[in-house]
């Protein structure tokens, strides 16, 4: 969804002007502010958690896609233009391939944020998972319970980056 909206906004200026201010406003809402609303709207089970993770991953990917497409070298676009590429053919043959590096950066950032939002989502009435264990450590109480969870979380991110 972030990719689709990002592509549409990046290609069609009027959509960008209409959509972008709203998306930027929503982006500035802290993730925890969504928690009570999502619990109210979607309950305390999986749907609200998945949506919260989705919100976390959405913005970096959307922004990277829009920025990538809007910053495609105008000189390449002109070459496509004089060779009669217009509309979808221009988008698929030039704009998307040229903005792929930026889109992949957004995917990577989105993946990182999604992990963070997994933990946040697990604060919402989960019975297991890192978020649940952190809450458990906080309420029971004992830093010795919390630190290993944070270490495990960091370990996951480290392994994510080792292959790059």
């Amino acid at each position, binding site marked *: 969804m972030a990719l689709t909206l990002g592509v549409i906004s990046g290609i069609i200026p009027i959509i960008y002007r209409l959509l972008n201010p709203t998306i930027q406003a929503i982006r500035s809402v802290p993730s925890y502010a969504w928690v009570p609303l999502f619990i109210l709207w979607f309950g305390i089970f999986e749907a609200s958690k998945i949506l919260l993770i989705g919100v976390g991953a959405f913005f970096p990917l959307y922004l990277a896609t829009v920025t990538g497409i809007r910053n495609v070298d105008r*000189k390449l676009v002109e*070459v496509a233009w004089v*060779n*009669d590429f217009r509309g979808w053919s221009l988008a698929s043959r030039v704009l998307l391939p*040229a903005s792929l590096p930026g889109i992949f950066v957004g995917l990577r950032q989105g993946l990182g944020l999604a992990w963070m939002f997994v933990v946040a989502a697990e604060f919402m009435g989960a019975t297991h998972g890192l978020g649940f264990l952190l809450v458990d450590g906080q309420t029971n109480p004992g830093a010795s319970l919390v630190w290993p969870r944070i270490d495990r979380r960091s370990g996951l991110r480290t392994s994510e980056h080792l292959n790059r």
Partner: protein
Amino acid sequence: MDVWPGFPSGRALAGFLSPMIRIDRITKAYGGVQPAITEFEFNIEPGSVTVMVGTTGSGKSTLIRVLAGLEAPTSGRIRWDNGSNNPFGIVFQEPRLMPWLNVRQNVKFGFGLKRTKESGRLADEILEQVGLRAFSRYYPRQLSGGMAQRVAIARALVKKPSLLLLDEPFSALDASTRTRLQQHLMQLWTDRSLTLFFVTHDIDEAVLLADRIVVIKGRPGRISHQFRVDLLRPRARQDKGFQALKERVLEALADQKSRS
């Protein structure tokens, strides 16, 4: 307007009688401010090499962009005598190759959406002509500046246009590569019966290639002088006629500076 006496050379003579493109009082202003070019009026004859020279900022590139359809003229019009569907190719100052496509794919990009079964063969044919057949699978990052510019020329020529627009295509290259590519371009001009419209600030290049030199002056740019070149090809820089014409063009440009 100073027109150098003498007939246009070679194929341009026939075209002189029936222009391929009529540039009719073209003015282009960006954002309603002072125009970049004003009241341009001249013809491009089929088979000719028209070279436009002028100092930086005189609107040379603006005119080529208007001709290519990348900018709409503020006033005036461009009339194609063979109909508006006349294909043209354009070569920019930089090669502007798609970095994710290899050489052959970049050349085929020149077909736009009109690819046929023949496209591959035609791409190979033009790559052969520009001497890059062996580099078909190379990517732009693996090419030298001269090779990349030859790919750009091949891309512009692959659909067999009748007109090739060149916007200072060799200005970023070293002297020896530039000379080689100039020879290459003239070979393609002969082999493919092309019409060339070439923009440059290099007077030597203009005298070396042109049937006609158009000098533009000032801001906004106006045509100040036109010279018909009847020197035989291939031309030698040390030739007296070459030097004499070069002097005249330089004088015209100096005159331009004093007036602008």
